[in-house]
Every structure is written in structure tokens, then in C-alpha cells.
């Protein structure tokens, strides 16, 4: 049998075959192409304050957390509902007696230096935390840290702490997992090597912090997407810049000009102005902090509970919050936010009474002779400054003699511990209430006792709260705790402040939270 002669292909036929081959390749590659995310070069976030340090153990500052929680991750953290969830831990087992916790670690998690995270790194991080962290008291009950194998860590406690995982997952000074080489580093002097989806590049202290995508980051597939501090974190930018832009007008202008993609803390008056700008999206971040003031129980005349009560019932919280927050607020008496399992309304009978006549009557009963109420506020936080102005006028209308002292933040903080310097110290309680009931108003408890004089009842209630073995018991105690705060006027709560943030309209996937989360954020063309 002879082989039929091969007819040479003409040019046209060769082009047809080539085109078919290309189409086949493209068709075959399309699923792969679809799976490959399109990454933009850079995302720019403008924040208002420079981070004092990037060591997450060494500061409670929001500006530190904004950046650090993209570089580092923790064993356990909080989800969008503030429940405790695992992050670097694969599984957590509490012993029946509550005296030990076993953490099985996720495998294949890499540090930014390429090394795999093991139990030795976790143990070293816990030891460093116990030594230098501002909230090292969390680990006071831990007597031993065992590492039976490379992916298991066992914490042994001296006593049962029912809220141990809540405290371990606190994001105030997060227990970030670092390489074991960092164990002996002093506070603030750590190498910025974590397991997070972004890795450290550069930090110009009053200009920017630059991070870049960590190519070996493996998203946690237990989650579907963004979920609190946890979640399935995917980065769609090669580089993320946290620009430090103190002036709010400059932040807004930069956003409008397209220099920034997302900005922190949009002033309310700017929010109203740019509401009609289709190129900008504005977000409400509710329950940012409790706006209020500490009350000094040691200094006259607020050392008398009748005077404190008069002060409390005289106030019109709606007017205070309306002016302090330019209308971005919610009025409610709870020290936890609505929707939170621990939200209770005990003490509401003293909240927002606007009872000037009742206040005057109480002052007369107390024999008030016009002693000065000294208010300390600061020029660094406008809501605190404005709230103090309004409160001063309302108190004067109720018969109080009032003086306001305005300082910069550092000076105001220094005066807080001087029991002779103030009667009311204006503040915003942010992280505490967000972390949960155990941190909500921890500062009224000894030894901190921001009210200067210890309150043995509140101290006992706090101990009862953190040792309560069931949710129902803890909630019942928290109700009594909140009642006591209102009854003794340990803290004057005005309302819940809503923060505004903004982004360019083509920024998708950004959901405002306690930190600006850069994961799962994309730029739409």
C-alpha cells in the first residue's frame, strides 16, 4: 500500500489551523484566567494619626492596630459579630476542669521570612507577650506553655478563667504570633515579620507605612470572605500605602482628587458636602466609641453622690451628642451596643433625664455652695472638646459653677491620674466596649479606678463577671455592674458615636470595621 502524498498546506490553511489552535488554547485557559485575580499596583489609605510603634504588643493605639493587623495574625481573634474564632489555631480544646487549653496549629502557614510557623514560634510569642506586652496580665494565670509537637501548643493555667479565650482574642494589644527569634526583643523593638497577608516594606514615621502583598500567604479557607479580624483574606494589590494625613480637609481633598482610595474619619460636614459626589462612597461605622466623661469621686464637690446625681440628671444627652458629633450618634444607655449579647439597659432611669429642676433640688440637699466643677478636655479630639462645651453650659443652667481646662491629648492624659486636677475628664471609650463586657469599663475597677477612689462593690462585681461560668451568670452580673456604674455615677455616658469613612466609588469590597481592612478590596475599572 502506498502512502498518499502529503499535500503541502497553503498559507491560508496554515493560518486557519493556527487560529483554531489559539482559540483552543484560550478556551482551555479561560477557567485558569478567570481564577487569577486581577491585581492593581497600589491601594492608598489615608489615616489621621501616625502609629507610635508597629509592635502590636506595645501600644493600644488605633493607628498601630490599623497597620499591624495586616502584618500579623493571632491564634484566636474576633469575627464580625465579635465572637471568638480561630485564626492561626486550627482547633482549640479546653480541658474539662478549665485549667488547660490545647491549640492545634494550622499547617503550612509561612512567616514573611519564608519559615513555617510552628509551636516554637507560638511559645516564644507567648513568652514575649508575658514579658513586654501592655496587657500581659491576660497571661498571668498561665503557668506553663508546652509544645508536645511542632503543631501543638498547650497552655496550663493556675486557675480557671472562663473568659480566657475572650481575653486571648482581645484586639486591644493583640497577641500577634512572631518568629521565635523575636522572643527576647524589648517592647517596640521587634522585627516586623508576621504571617499576615501584607508584609512590611518601609516606614517613614510622619509620612507613610508601606506594605506589600505577601505572595506565599495562604488564605484561611474555613471562611467565605471578610469576617471581623479573621476571614479569608485575599489581597488584590501589589502594594498598600498607609499615608499619614493629619489634616481632615487635606484627607478629603486627597480623596476627591483621587490621590487616596480610602480615608479614615471623614468629618461630618464634609460627608454632607460630598454626599452628592458620585465618585465617592461614604460609610457609617456605628458604635465607634462611647462618648462620655469620667467622674472624680475624690475631689469635692463630686465626692458627694448627691452632687454626682444632680450632674447626671441635669444633662440633655441629645443636645450634647448632636453638637459633639454633628448628628452622627445613637442615644442608648447601655455600656454594650444593641445587638451585642450583653446589651442591657440597667441604669436607664438616670440616663438623659434633662431634669434641671431635679438637679437643683439635689444640689440644695447636698448643701452645694458653688464649688467649682473642673472639666478637663482636649483639643485633639473634636467630639470630646465640643461635648465639654455643651456639658459646661448645661451644668451652669442647672446651678453649677464650672471651669473648663483644655489641653493637648498628652497633657490631658497626664492630668487624668491627678485626683486634685479635675471633676470631669472627657473621653471616648472605643476598644473596651467593642472587645466585650469584660473590657467595657474595666477602668473603673482597681487598680486603675479612673474615678480615683476605689469602689469595692464594682471591684467585686468585676471579679464575679470574669469568673462567671455561664453566659447567663455573666450577663446577670454585667447588669449589676452597669447598674452600679449609673447608681454611683462612676462614668457619665452621653451616647454612641458613629464614625464616617469614605472611599472612591470604584473601591469594592471595603467594609468599615475597627481597623480599615485592606483584604478582599478591589478597584473596579
Amino acid at each position: 500500500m502506498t502512502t498518499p502524498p502529503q499535500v503541502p498546506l497553503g498559507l491560508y490553511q496554515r493560518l486557519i489551523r493556527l487560529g483554531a489552535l489559539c482559540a483552543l488554547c484560550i478556551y482551555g485557559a479561560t477557567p485558569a484566567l478567570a481564577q487569577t485575580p486581577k491585581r492593581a499596583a497600589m491601594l492608598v489609605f489615608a489615616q489621621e494619626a501616625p502609629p507610635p510603634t508597629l509592635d502590636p504588643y506595645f501600644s493600644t493605639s488605633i493607628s498601630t492596630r490599623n497597620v499591624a493587623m495586616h502584618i500579623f495574625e493571632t491564634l484566636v481573634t474576633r469575627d464580625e459579630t465579635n465572637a471568638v474564632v480561630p485564626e492561626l489555631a486550627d482547633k482549640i480544646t479546653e480541658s474539662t476542669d478549665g485549667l488547660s487549653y490545647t491549640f492545634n496549629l494550622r499547617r503550612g502557614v509561612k512567616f514573611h521570612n519564608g519559615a513555617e510557623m510552628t509551636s516554637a514560634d507560638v511559645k516564644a510569642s507567648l513568652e514575649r507577650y508575658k514579658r513586654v506586652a501592655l496587657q500581659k496580665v491576660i497571661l498571668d494565670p498561665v503557668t506553663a506553655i508546652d509544645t508536645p509537637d511542632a503543631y501543638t501548643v498547650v497552655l496550663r493555667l493556675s486557675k480557671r478563667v472562663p473568659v480566657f479565650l475572650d481575653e486571648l482574642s482581645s484586639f486591644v494589644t493583640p497577641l500577634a504570633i512572631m518568629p521565635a527569634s523575636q522572643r527576647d526583643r524589648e517592647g517596640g523593638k521587634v522585627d516586623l515579620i508576621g504571617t499576615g497577608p501584607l508584609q512590611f516594606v518601609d516606614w517613614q514615621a510622619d509620612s507613610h507605612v508601606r506594605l506589600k502583598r505577601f505572595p506565599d500567604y495562604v488564605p484561611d479557607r474555613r471562611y467565605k470572605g471578610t469576617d471581623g479580624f479573621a476571614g479569608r483574606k485575599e489581597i488584590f494589590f501589589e502594594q498598600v500605602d498607609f499615608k499619614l494625613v493629619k489634616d481632615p480637609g487635606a484627607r478629603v481633598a486627597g480623596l476627591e482628587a483621587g490621590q487616596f482610595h480610602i480615608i479614615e474619619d471623614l468629618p461630618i460636614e464634609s460627608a454632607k458636602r460630598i454626599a452628592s459626589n458620585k465618585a465617592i462612597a461614604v460609610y457609617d461605622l456605628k458604635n465607634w466609641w462611647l462618648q462620655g466623661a469620667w467622674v472624680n469621686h475624690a475631689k469635692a464637690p463630686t465626692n458627694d453622690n448627691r452632687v454626682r446625681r444632680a450632674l447626671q440628671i441635669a444633662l440633655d444627652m441629645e443636645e450634647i451628642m448632636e453638637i459633639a458629633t454633628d448628628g452622627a450618634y445613637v442615644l442608648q444607655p447601655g455600656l454594650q451596643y444593641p445587638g451585642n449579647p450583653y446589651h442591657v439597659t440597667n441604669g436607664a432611669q438616670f440616663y438623659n433625664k434633662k431634669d434641671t429642676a431635679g438637679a437643683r433640688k439635689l444640689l440644695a440637699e447636698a448643701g452645694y455652695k458653688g464649688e467649682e466643677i473642673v472639666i478637663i478636655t482636649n483639643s485633639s479630639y473634636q467630639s470630646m472638646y465640643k461635648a465639654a462645651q455643651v456639658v459646661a453650659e448645661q451644668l451652669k443652667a442647672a446651678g453649677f459653677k464650672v471651669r473648663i481646662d483644655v489641653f493637648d491629648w498628652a497633657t490631658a492624659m497626664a492630668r487624668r491620674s491627678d485626683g486634685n486636677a479635675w471633676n470631669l475628664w472627657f473621653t471616648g471609650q472605643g476598644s473596651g466596649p467593642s472587645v466585650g463586657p469584660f473590657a467595657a469599663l474595666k477602668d473603673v475597677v482597681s487598680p486603675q479606678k479612673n474615678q480615683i477612689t476605689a469602689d469595692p462593690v464594682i471591684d467585686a462585681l468585676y471579679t464575679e463577671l470574669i469568673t462567671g461560668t455561664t453566659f447567663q451568670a455573666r450577663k446577670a452580673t454585667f447588669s449589676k455592674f452597669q447598674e452600679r456604674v449609673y447608681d454611683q455615677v462612676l462614668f457619665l455616658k452621653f451616647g454612641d458615636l458613629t464614625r464616617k469613612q469614605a472611599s472612591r466609588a470604584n473601591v469594592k469590597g471595603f467594609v468599615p470595621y475597627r481597623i480599615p481592612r485592606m483584604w478582599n478590596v478591589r478597584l473596579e475599572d
Partner: protein
Amino acid sequence: MAEFVLRRLLSAIPVLLLVTLIAASIMQLVPGDPAMVIAGSGASDAEVQQVRLALGLDRSFGVRLLEWYGGLLRGDLGQSLLLNRSVTTAIAERLPVTLALAGFALLLTIIIGVPAGIIAALKANTAIDQAVLMLALIGVSVPNFWLSLMLIVAFGVWLEVLPAGGYTPFADDPLGWVRCLILPGISLALLQIGLLARITRATMLEVLRQDYVRTARAKGLPIRMVVGQHALRNVLVPVVTVIGISFGLLLSGSVVIETVYSIPGLGRLLATAIFSRDYPVIQGGLLVTAAMLVLLNLAVDLLYAVIDPRIKHDGRS
């Protein structure tokens, strides 16, 4: 001349040491310390104290000051408590930025202020003169932070022809560097332009009334020759004095502009350091600023000798 320069430099040393001593002492009187800033607003007193101990702030002021002066003798300005770098590095990173901004503003000041003052003097009591005086008055009256925000909105947001803020290093993009300096340079220079125009006008009017100028005019010389060859040099001595003062004010007054435009310069570094009580940065930054002003004054004095040959810095006059 060399002896004059050496004498001035040596006499500056006690001045600089006094500046740092006064700055350090005043900061000790101000409540608060960097431990509070680092620990954050949510920190308890115990947590702040922990930071204080870690930073060595529990040591006495005298011990810390002596330690700093000891480092100064070795050329070490110490370590910033908040910036994660040495004070020398922090200043070295930011000084060129402030010098660039102040230099650009000074250039605008000179090329606008001097000619405006000369023209106003030559056209004294005319509409042109009144216009220059009015613009000078606006320049000295308008708050520079308000002007900054207006320029940002107009050119950065509405017209989008210039950046709304930030800084591009020259090495990265020379054109970007120029563009990012335009708006802050104008904001910074406006006040100085107004001042310089008025001083130049007043000085020029005084010089134009002199006999030698009247003679030059009577001889029929063109006005540009009268001004350029006869009058201008005599105007320059007081004008150079004002330019020197202006440059000093531009260097030290850039804090507001650097903050509004988010420019990482020395002024903003110092302002941030003061609010956060970063003592080594405050002392080092003020030392460098004072040293620059000393050198600036010396340069102005030496320039006098160039402009006016009658002025000699050899101890004889």
C-alpha cells in the same frame, strides 16, 4: 575674613547649647511624656508606667540630659522614642524636604517681591503702586492654612492640575518634585512676598531721592540704567537683610504648610515631636534649626561685604 567667620562660628556654640538646654527644660515642665502617646489612649496608668520603664524615662532629667550632651560630643543626637530611627537619620531624611520647600518659596519671594517693590517705587502714587500695595497687604493678611486649603480645592480637586498634597523626591521624578512644591511654595511665600515688596518699595523710594540718582537722571540715562547700575546696589543691603530673615522664617514657619500638604519635612517632624513629647527629636531638631539660622545670618553678613565694598569683616570695620 576667615578670622571673622571662625569667630562667629565659635560664638554660636554656646548659643546652640543654650537653645537645647532651654528646650529640654521647657519640655520637662510640660505635663505628659511619650510613654502616654506610645501606650495609647486605652492604656491604664500601670501600662503607661511599663512603657515609661522600658524607654528609660523613669531616670532623672539631669541624667538623661547629660547622656544626650555626651552623645552630642560624639555627633550622636540620640534615638527617637517614637520614630524607630536615630534622630540624625530622621532629620537627614526631612531636612532636604524643608530646604527644598523653603528654597522654592524663597525663589518665588525674590522673583516676585523685589521686582514688585521696584515697580511700585518707580510708579509711586499711581494705580500700579496702589495695586502692588494692596496685593502686598493681602499677602500679609491672608492666613496661610486657609490659603493652602483653597489652593488644594481649586487646583487639586476642581482643576486636577496639581497634586493635592504629598511629596515626590527629586530623584524619583524631577517634574513631580516641582509639581508637588508649587502649591505649598505659593502658600508659604505669599506672606514674605508681601513683606519684601513693601520693604523694597520703601528702600527704593529712599534711594531714588538721593542726589546721585537725581544726577544720573539729569544726565539723561535710561531708567533701567539708573535703577540697575546706580540705585539697585544700594537697595540690596537692607533687602538682603530682609531676605535672610525671610528665609529663616520660611524654614521655621513651614510647620503649618507641611501639615496641611502632608509634606514630610523638618517643621512637621518637630511639631509632631512636641505633641508626642519625643524629647530627643525636639532637642536635635531645634539644635539643627538654630544652627541653620546661625549659618544663615553668617551668610547674610558675608553677602554684605560682596554687595557693599565699604563693609569689611576683617576686624577693622
